[in-house]
């Protein structure tokens, strides 16, 4: 479970009147927000046993895809582009990059 609050995604409905135009973060229009990003060829796998919750990966993720949960972190797959920075930053090797389609 992703802890809240996260951005609120609104369903995009084609506007008819000016006030129908969406304000704020909206889903649907892009690949990134609909399920796992199409850009990703690899995805980080977190080993909670090795993670000490130092949050180095959290501070290094350009996409806000690493989410704090309790003392550890979890991945918000919707936003991960598979850049692999988190795996480089983790000194304890608690993050490994795995092929997206294994």
């Amino acid at each position, binding site marked *: 479970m992703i*802890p*809240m*609050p*996260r*951005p609120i995604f609104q369903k*995009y409905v084609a506007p008819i009147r000016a006030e129908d*135009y*969406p304000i*704020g*973060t*909206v*889903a*649907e*229009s*892009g690949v*990134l*927000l609909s399920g796992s990003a199409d*850009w*990703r060829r690899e995805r980080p796998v977190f080993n909670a046993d090795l993670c000490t919750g130092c*949050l180095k990966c*959290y*501070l*290094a*993720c*350009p*996409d*806000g895809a690493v*989410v*704090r949960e309790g003392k550890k972190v979890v991945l918000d797959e919707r*936003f991960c*582009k*598979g*850049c*692999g*920075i988190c*795996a*480089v*930053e983790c000194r304890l090797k608690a993050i490994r*990059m795995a092929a997206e389609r294994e």
Partner: protein
Amino acid sequence: MSGSSKTPISPRSLPEEEFFIGHKACAGCGGSLAVRLALKVTGPRSLVAVPAGCMSAVGFLYPQMSFSCNAIISTFAGTASMLSGMAAGARALGWRDVKVVGFAGDGGTADIGLQALSGAIDRRERILYICYDNEGYMNTGVQKSGLTPPGARTTTTPVGSTMRGSSGPKKNMFEIVAANGIAYAATASVGYPQDYLDKVARAASVDGTAYIQVLSPCPTGWGVPSHETTRIAREAVDCGLWVLGEYADGKHILNRDPGTFAPAAEHLRTQGRFKHLTDEDVARVERDRDEQWKKIRDHWLR
């Protein structure tokens, strides 16, 4: 310094909300990390201006907007003037708890946006200007800017028989804003996020204009794998090629002295833009670095 706090920001105390999310920056984009981290500090009541450049191109894909705080695109040259207007607007509305913050690339800062920034500093606008320095005009396809370092290959400074990458020096924006008499300025690196977060916090509480220049590698333009962004940004500091400093109350402060520098040759040549550098080229880079560090070590406070 200027009444701002020196208590470090704890990563756990940062808000859970993401204020820059779902953007379409390339995987591993350092600029987007710089924006994301800064907004974690300045928070939901940030009023953001972003000029033409990658961060506006990837952040405002209407109707899928990536900023969950107030944000607007400014003209390419007008980041600091738009921030000034936003600060005036907030004053007029009696909004006292907002942070007015801009994110501009190096081209938008050191070249076309310089006069607006200088004017804002002169008027002592209470704004925070963050330059995410990826050392080139990336959004238009990697052209040389005033902050492109010597030797770097860009599409306008190619490597061939008559040209060997960018020839001029990198403009010293940090000294330029200091010479303008700015209230607070700092250099940072996305490879040292704690240092960067602390500087954003300090800058946001300064009574006057604040400027932060944060080294933000661009995997696409630099020719490095996407997972290298933060490591390269850290290594640049460890090699002495990027200085972590501050300017406050009229004084220069050195935040980190690596002592002996990590070897520059390997750091440079793992980047596609520097692959062509000869041993002689690298020696020149190291000579320039050592000269700069001599001045810093002699004159800056620790």
